[in-house]
């Protein structure tokens, strides 16, 4: 499984910065007393915009790694002679209907009944 979305936190910060820049631009134009500082405000706004873009792209990229998929694979062991049922983690070489020695309970032939993966609970 790969993660492709940007982290929402970064996107929110980026949007807020852009909004801030926009408000600065509007203030510089509309509010009269501030018009003396319009250059300063404009530069500040542009800096905010640049920061917003930077966060959007860099913040998004840091998540572009493949999750190491560890799946939980279970091997179920049963017996031909009795109804014993035993579960253990999958180990290499296991296959369904492989005979795995005598049964612990009745010393009949025990075999692998099923192999399946179950979803890992995310914490």
């Amino acid at each position, binding site marked *: *499984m*790969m993660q*492709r979305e940007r982290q929402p936190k970064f996107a929110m910060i980026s949007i807020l910065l852009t909004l801030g820049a926009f408000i600065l*631009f509007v203030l*510089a*134009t509309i509010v009269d007393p501030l*018009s*003396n500082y*319009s*250059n300063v405000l*404009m530069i500040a706004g542009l800096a905010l915009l640049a920061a917003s873009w930077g966060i959007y792209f860099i913040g998004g990229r840091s998540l*572009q790694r*493949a999750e190491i*998929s560890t*799946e939980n*694979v279970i091997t179920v062991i049963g017996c*031909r002679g009795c109804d014993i049922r035993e579960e253990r983690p*999958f180990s*290499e*070489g*296991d*296959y*369904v*209907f*492989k005979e795995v020695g005598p049964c612990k309970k009745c010393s009949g032939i025990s075999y692998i009944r*099923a*192999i*399946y*993966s*179950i979803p890992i609970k995310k914490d």
Partner: protein
Amino acid sequence: MNIVVVNMVIPVGQGLFPTGNDLSSIILNILWVVFFFSMILLFNQRLQIWTYQRNVEKATIKLQMLADKSREEALKSVQKYAQENTDVRSQVTAFLDFFTIEPVDRDPFGVLNRLEHLLDNRRDRFKAFVAQIAPKAGKAEAANTEDILEAAMALNFIFKVVRHYLILGKKTKSLMIFVQLDMQLPLIMKMAEAYFNAQKTFSAGKPIGDGLGPLVASKLMYGLPKRIIAEDIVCSEVDISNRKAYVLKAEGPGGLLGKPGEAVKRLVEEMSGKVARIFMVDASSKLEGENTGEVVEGVGAAIGDPGPEKYKIEEVATKYKIPLDAIVCKMDLEEALTTMKKEIVEASDIIIEKIKKAIVERTKEGDVVIIAGIGNTIGIGQ
């Protein structure tokens, strides 16, 4: 004039969008308008190309990473069974570009025979390659190694095609190439990830979702005598409510598909067509919104091969007017290629009950039926 120019460049005290009536603010406003229009009219497509190109480039880098990793995985699994002092790397890398040319279908007569011939060729070459490069592998390990190579080849191919269109788009500066590529990327990436995860499952030898058919068959035939009736296909006679059922599947636990079509054809011919019904069990791709492990019944040859095996079953069933029953279990591509999920294992028991019920309802005592478990039998013995 000089003063105007200076004023224009540094509009002190006028704000970003000047509202005054003097010449400099008018010129500044005009410049803004020109700037916006040039952005929208002239550079618009450039900007779009740039955005799409960025997406495609990122995807290509990821695809390359997947292709590289899967090649390393293939090398690792080949190396386990390789003779010492052989140059595995260059041979495997060269083999990943192995291709098959589809037969011409402009003259469709016998196209399936020709396709089958080519597929046989392909499989023989695969087997020969694995036998030569990994001589220490047993039958099952060799079959798994073939599957691992297949997955690496698929990823290699996907990466190369996407890279081709990326470079083509850059060369021609064509927005259409990038747009088309970018729109297909989510599906392409999904497929690539499915193959990548599949390879890990193959190298561990775990059963995959596509193994549902063989699982059903092996549950029916477990403990009974078996015989090989076609290439890589085993068959057992099972008694189900006083009907004689021939159950067949690919020979496990290596990753094999075998030739189930050939097997069904031979069985039916052997009994000169005296078969009451043919049941086929297979995994089927689900639609989004359907549940994994859902069991559905229908009619027809439930087999997803490129054509030849399906054709043989349909042909022999038609020749002797044998009804074809299909029972499938729903799953998506990723689930079919990766470790079998619990829902699918549970579905196999439901399918067995359904088959038994159908046999009682639709055939008479003493009839002969065929039950074919279709799919890749990796990790499933018998």
